[in-house]
């Protein structure tokens, strides 16, 4: 039982990170119907932004840790918006395939630029938050970094939900995600909303990058590839374009992965996680919370 709970905690904390990344995929898909493959590398840049900002502030300090988190989120928001402006917007009215290939190009560019500027070798990540292990009576351990993951992820999810459901720009995001023609006819500048969406998604990826790094303590310029892929899977699993779905998909994938990892089939962790994805999509092609859209004419 103790082991089960322990694994559940580990799984949820990994899953919360997947969820944060998955949200960016799903939101961009919502407004543009395209998968931003460079998103996983924004996650990496977020981790590195935290690493370098960490040089200027004392380690193991809650206030400074949060400041670094906010700084990295801001940097990545700007990066995401810049990428959208320079690489994707000029292709807005071209075939979706062009943008998709461009996104893969941007992803490679970020990975290689990362190796050039940050160095290809893996770096030890500083402890941005105070380090402490909380141990329960039963022997379940919750590290302060895991706790940080939970708290930050929950706050960001609630904040995001508030923005999307209760604010003017959030409603505009949903309007744009429904139909670009209708949204421009009510006076919404689609470019502004799309840019905002990229900024928001990238900021969440940066938060994911930092939380991932403080838990795994090593970073390198290719670190985004696998978590990015899994977060993408999580987004599809939850129903691409669906925000609560992305969160659910992330958590589910994290938990499954952790449990398989803790079993004797650990060699097959990724294989099992992806097989499960295929299985779920066979029965629910639109994902767990996604709906197949039928348009009335």
């Amino acid at each position, binding site marked *: 039982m103790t082991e089960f709970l322990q694994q559940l905690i580990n799984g949820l904390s990994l899953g919360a990170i997947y969820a944060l990344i998955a949200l960016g995929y799903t939101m961009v898909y919502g407004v543009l119907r395209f998968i931003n493959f460079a998103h996983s590398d924004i996650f990496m840049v977020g981790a590195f932004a935290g690493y370098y900002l960490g040089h200027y502030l004392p380690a193991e300090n809650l206030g400074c840790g949060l400041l670094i988190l906010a700084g990295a989120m801001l940097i990545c928001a700007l990066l995401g918006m810049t990428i959208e402006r320079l690489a994707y917007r000029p292709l807005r009215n071209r075939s979706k395939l062009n943008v998709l290939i461009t996104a893969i190009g941007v992803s490679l560019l970020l990975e290689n630029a990362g190796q050039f500027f940050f160095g290809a070798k893996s770096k030890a990540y500083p402890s941005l938050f105070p380090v402490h292990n909380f141990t329960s009576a039963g022997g379940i351990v919750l590290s302060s970094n895991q706790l940080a993951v939970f708290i930050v992820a929950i706050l960001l999810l609630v904040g995001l939900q508030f923005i999307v459901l209760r604010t*003017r720009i959030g*409603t*505009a995001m*949903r*309007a744009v*995600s*429904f*139909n670009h*023609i*209708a*949204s*421009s*006819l*009510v*006076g*919404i*500048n*689609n470019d502004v909303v799309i840019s905002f969406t990229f900024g928001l998604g990238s900021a969440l990826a940066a938060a994911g990058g930092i939380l991932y790094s403080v838990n795994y303590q090593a970073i390198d310029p290719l670190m985004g590839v696998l978590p990015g892929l899994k977060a993408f899977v999580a987004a599809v699993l939850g129903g691409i374009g669906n925000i609560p779905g992305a969160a659910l998909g992330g958590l589910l994938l994290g938990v499954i992965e952790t449990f398989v990892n803790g079993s004797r089939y650990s060699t097959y962790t990724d294989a099992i996680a992806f097989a499960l994805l295929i299985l779920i999509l066979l029965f629910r092609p639109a994902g767990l919370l996604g709906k197949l859209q039928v*348009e*009335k*004419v």
Partner: protein
Amino acid sequence: MLEVKNLTVNYGAITALRGVSLQVKQGDIVTLIGANGAGKTTTLRAISGLLKTAGGEVLYEGRNIANLPAHEIVKLGMSHVPEGRMVFANLTVLENLQMGAYLRRDKPAIRKEMDYVFGIFPRLQERLKQTAGTLSGGEQQMLAIGRALMSKPKFLMLDEPSLGIAPLLVKTIFEKIVEINREQGISILLVEQNANLALEISQYGYVLETGRIILQDRSLALRQNPQVKSAYLGGA
């Protein structure tokens, strides 16, 4: 109010509009009739900025607005209810109306506008919290018109408001269009396949055929025109 001069629109190599000219005077309802594929929707889309024009002018209150982006044109007091309604199916009725007032900040005035919309379409008020996708076709059309009114337009363009709607509701919706025109003084450009109905409520009409205006006259006269009668009004 609106004067379109020699408007040309191309879809790639295909010319959809070949020099369309038309005029909507302040306070009038003007209709544009024609067969499928004549270019009616293209004309409206070019006026509201959804399509790039290849030539000609769109003078709105004396200013050439051709090729301005659609969201800028909305600011000038022009509202376009597109073909197929395009209500935000994933948003509630209330949110749809709020999005209609996207460019306005004055909350009390927006509230007044919404009350006016509920006055003409009480059905919308009953369905306020429902997502728009669950509405019937007629209700969606009411919502699309209501959403367009929320921007407090001076000029309204309606594209096939009768399309796919129960005949009884069509009558109601056309009565409301006249009411909006009279009470709010909103000038209207109406595109409609149901030429009978359109010529009944409008003052002036244009007949569009393969991208050209082939006929124009007062609506009353067009209804008597033998050519229009045989081609668009269902024979003798």
